[in-house]
């Protein structure tokens, strides 16, 4: 174990010679630093746990005192947790700067040690540095760092503080392994590792049974997807004898276009993506995952982990481009999820549930993007979404934090997350209010915020892909396009509803409680501000050429036309080539006519109208606090409020039958049939023995008589 760790720290083995001019800068340290953070924080957490266990045994809680007299186990993680993230981010930036000027055609692979070498199967513990992993690395360490900083404020009074940072660091470690691993096998390590951290962090307040259950649910549902991932890997290995990215993609085109094998491989990979990225039908775990601390929701369940599925599809673009059916399924599931989750979000009252369903919906958009061959657009939306959704979650965290303290001040047990208890918060928390509005406009797709560019590109590519010369299912893509547009309008509505219910109108927190409402401390609002800046300008790095010249690009004023597109070209080139050969040119017109500029204009104007209209509409509705709210939703609203009863359906038709079958296997098959048979054999031999023992009378004469008869019988038989 020491050797691998040392290898990582020393910058590892030799980078491949064909690395061009790009010289990786301690890439192993990016991965290693969060791991070290985990180890140190973990040891602190265990120490801390011992102390608090003693208190618990006495029937008390550990007294954390006031800020000045907290134990070192509580104060050290404040520096270690975000510290390792900052360092990792800086290293990532240096690497990015080095790669920036170089057009790197082949990924740079940094090998450390041979992880598994068995017979015909070898997989190295190696990091792959290329444009895609670089972008992911920056997002993970950058946004991750901001969220760590925010957590310092959000979690400072939590008794499990060091444990929290230990888990968070471990998560970042696995997430980096996921995106930097040079093979599917290594990616799978990160894939399940982040699932584990998600489990631990959702169930972070494990004393609460519901939260603990939510963590378990997330893990098990994720594992259903993981089986798909495993099977896809096995298929790859059977075909290519390796699961490393470079050789697999190099030989990918030996597979028949639209053939059964490549379709199977990609569909199984997509099953994995469905589980991890919470798409229909495996999305049920994500809303429950909101049981975790809010910064966790921001980091894991919005910005990074849940986008792993999108990363997987983008990474495997060469395979997905070969399988038009799989791509259509990816886009189809994506667009259905986008719509489905958006409708559920319309009727949620818990601020985090709204954001959770919104995340599911936005992930759907990303899958539409990678499903219609716009891999760069999918990654683009992944990036902008990481900015504005992290901002929204952190903002909601600030709100919940304030609400919680408000209720705490009066020992009230009202729900601090229910928007019906909020209202009018803009007066108390102006910074949160402004930054969250920025994120809302971004997610709603209002020009010139980040979400506008990324979402518009995805929607546009859906139309363009369906209009390609030899598009596989043109009509289907038209349907996708319409649904995607419609879901965008729903997004604008439910997000505005959330903002209005939270920040506008009368305050409904309660007269006493509202006195304790306050703006978040700087350690919390500074990350919000940084993310707000990114949510505004983040989209400008990838303005499509066609739009740049129009009003959308301020007639050429916005910089960096299609930068991300070009940046990711070495990754997506193969897929684009396959696509061009087989499908021909993409269309320049939507199914209903009109080019990209027209439809971009239509969608942002429409979204703007929806935002304004819903401010009026929601603002005009009378919202009553939870305590006084007796009105139950009816009709379709009730179905929406209950999330289409999907959880109930799964419980009734999946979980209960399995539990029933398990009981049947145990009580009937195992205990009755198998063990019954075993015991029957035992009983039979006992019975026979008992019957035969009747001959043993204990009387000598009987024995002698039987003996004589026996001798005579034997003599008789032999002599006669």
């Amino acid at each position, binding site marked *: 174990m020491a050797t691998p760790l040392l290898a990582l720290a020393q910058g590892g083995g030799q980078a491949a010679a064909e690395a061009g001019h790009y010289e990786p800068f301690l890439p192993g340290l990016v991965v290693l630093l969060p791991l070290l953070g985990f180890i140190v924080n973990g040891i602190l957490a265990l120490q801390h746990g011992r102390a608090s266990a003693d208190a618990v045994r006495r029937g008390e809680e550990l007294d954390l005192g006031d800020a000045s007299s907290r134990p070192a186990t509580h104060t050290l993680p404040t520096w270690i947790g975000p510290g390792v993230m900052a360092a990792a981010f800086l290293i990532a930036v240096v690497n990015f700067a080095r790669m920036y000027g170089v057009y790197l055609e082949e990924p740079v692979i940094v090998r450390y040690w041979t992880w598994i070498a068995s017979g015909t199967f070898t997989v190295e513990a190696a990091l792959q540095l290329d444009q895609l992993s670089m972008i992911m690395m920056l997002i993970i360490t950058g946004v991750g760092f901001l969220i760590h900083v925010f957590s310092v404020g959000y979690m400072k009074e939590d008794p499990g503080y060091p444990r929290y940072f230990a888990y968070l660091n471990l998560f970042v470690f696995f997430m980096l392994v996921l995106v930097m691993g040079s093979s599917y096998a290594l990616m799978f390590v990160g894939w399940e590792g982040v699932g584990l951290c998600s489990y631990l962090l959702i169930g972070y307040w494990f004393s609460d049974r519901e939260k603990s259950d939510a963590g378990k649910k997330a893990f098990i549902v994720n594992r259903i997807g993981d089986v798909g991932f495993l099977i896809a890997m096995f298929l790859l290995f059977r075909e290519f004898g390796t699961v490393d990215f470079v050789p697999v993609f190099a030989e990918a085109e030996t597979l028949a276009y639209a053939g059964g094998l490549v379709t199977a491989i990609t569909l199984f990979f997509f099953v994995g993506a469905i589980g991890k990225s919470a798409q229909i039908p495996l999305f049920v775990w994500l809303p429950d995952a909101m049981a975790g601390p809010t910064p966790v929701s921001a980091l894991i369940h919005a910005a990074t982990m849940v986008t792993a599925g999108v990363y997987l599809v983008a990474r495997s673009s060469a395979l997905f481009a070969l399988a038009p059916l799989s791509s259509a399924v990816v886009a189809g599931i994506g667009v259905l999820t986008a719509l489905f989750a958006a409708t559920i979000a319309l009727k949620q009252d818990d601020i985090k549930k709204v954001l959770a369903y919104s995340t599911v919906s936005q992930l759907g958009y990303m899958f539409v993007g990678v499903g219609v061959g716009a891999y760069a657009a999918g990654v683009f939306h992944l990036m902008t979404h990481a900015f504005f959704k992290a901002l929204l979650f952190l903002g909601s965290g600030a709100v919940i934090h304030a609400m919680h303290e408000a209720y705490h001040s009066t020992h009230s047990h009202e729900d601090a997350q229910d928007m019906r208890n909020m209202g009018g918060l803009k007066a108390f928390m102006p910074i949160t209010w402004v930054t969250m509005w920025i994120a809302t406009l971004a997610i709603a797709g209002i020009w010139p915020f980040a979400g506008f560019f990324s979402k518009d590109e995805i929607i546009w590519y859906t139309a363009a892909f369906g209009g390609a010369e030899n598009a596989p299912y043109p009509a289907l893509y038209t349907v996708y396009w319409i649904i995607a547009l419609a879901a965008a309008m729903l997004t604008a509505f439910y997000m505005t509803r959330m903002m209005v219910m939270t920040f506008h109108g009368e305050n409904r927190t309660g007269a006493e409680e509202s006195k304790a409402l306050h703006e978040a401390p700087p350690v919390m609002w500074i990350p919000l501000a940084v993310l707000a800046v990114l949510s505004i300008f983040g989209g400008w790095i990838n303005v499509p050429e066609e739009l740049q010249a129009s009003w959308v690009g301020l007639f050429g004023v916005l910089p960096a036309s299609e930068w991300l597109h070009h940046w990711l070209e070495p990754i997506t080139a193969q897929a684009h080539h396959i696509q061009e050969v087989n499908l021909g040119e993409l269309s320049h017109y939507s199914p209903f006519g009109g080019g990209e500029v027209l439809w971009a204009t239509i969608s942002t104007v429409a979204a703007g109208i929806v935002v304004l209209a819903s401010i009026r509409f929601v603002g005009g509705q009378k919202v009553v606090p939870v305590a006084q709210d007796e009105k139950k939703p009816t009709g379709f609203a009730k179905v929406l409020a209950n999330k289409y009863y999907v959880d109930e359906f799964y419980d009734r038709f999946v979980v209960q039958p399995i539990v029933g079958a398990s009981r049947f296997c145990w009580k009937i098959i195992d205990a009755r049939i198998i063990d019954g048979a075993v015991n029957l054999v035992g009983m039979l031999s006992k019975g026979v023995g008992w019957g035969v023992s009747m001959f043993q009378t204990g*009387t*000598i004469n009987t024995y002698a008589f039987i003996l004589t008869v026996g001798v005579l019988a034997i003599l008789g038989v032999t002599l006669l």
Partner: protein
Amino acid sequence: MVTEALVLSAILFVIGTFGVLIRRNAIIMFLCIELQLNAVNLSFVAFSRMFGIEGQLFVFFVMTVAAAEAAVGLAIIISIFRHYETVNVDSFNLLKW
């Protein structure tokens, strides 16, 4: 000559056998067993006239074993008698299942 001896031996053996089977007194059963052994001895001696000296040799073995057996057997019967004050074998069925 041999035939007569063998017939006598057979008669003695059958008497011994029936004695063992029918009588209930341990001492008498014991004596009947001795009778059987000696019937066999008689046939050994008779056969040794036809087949050589080994038969007579075996008689000595049988007698030795019989003597040892008598010693042990009588000792057991005596200690049973001390315990139960009877030598009727019907009343001993401790070895019943």
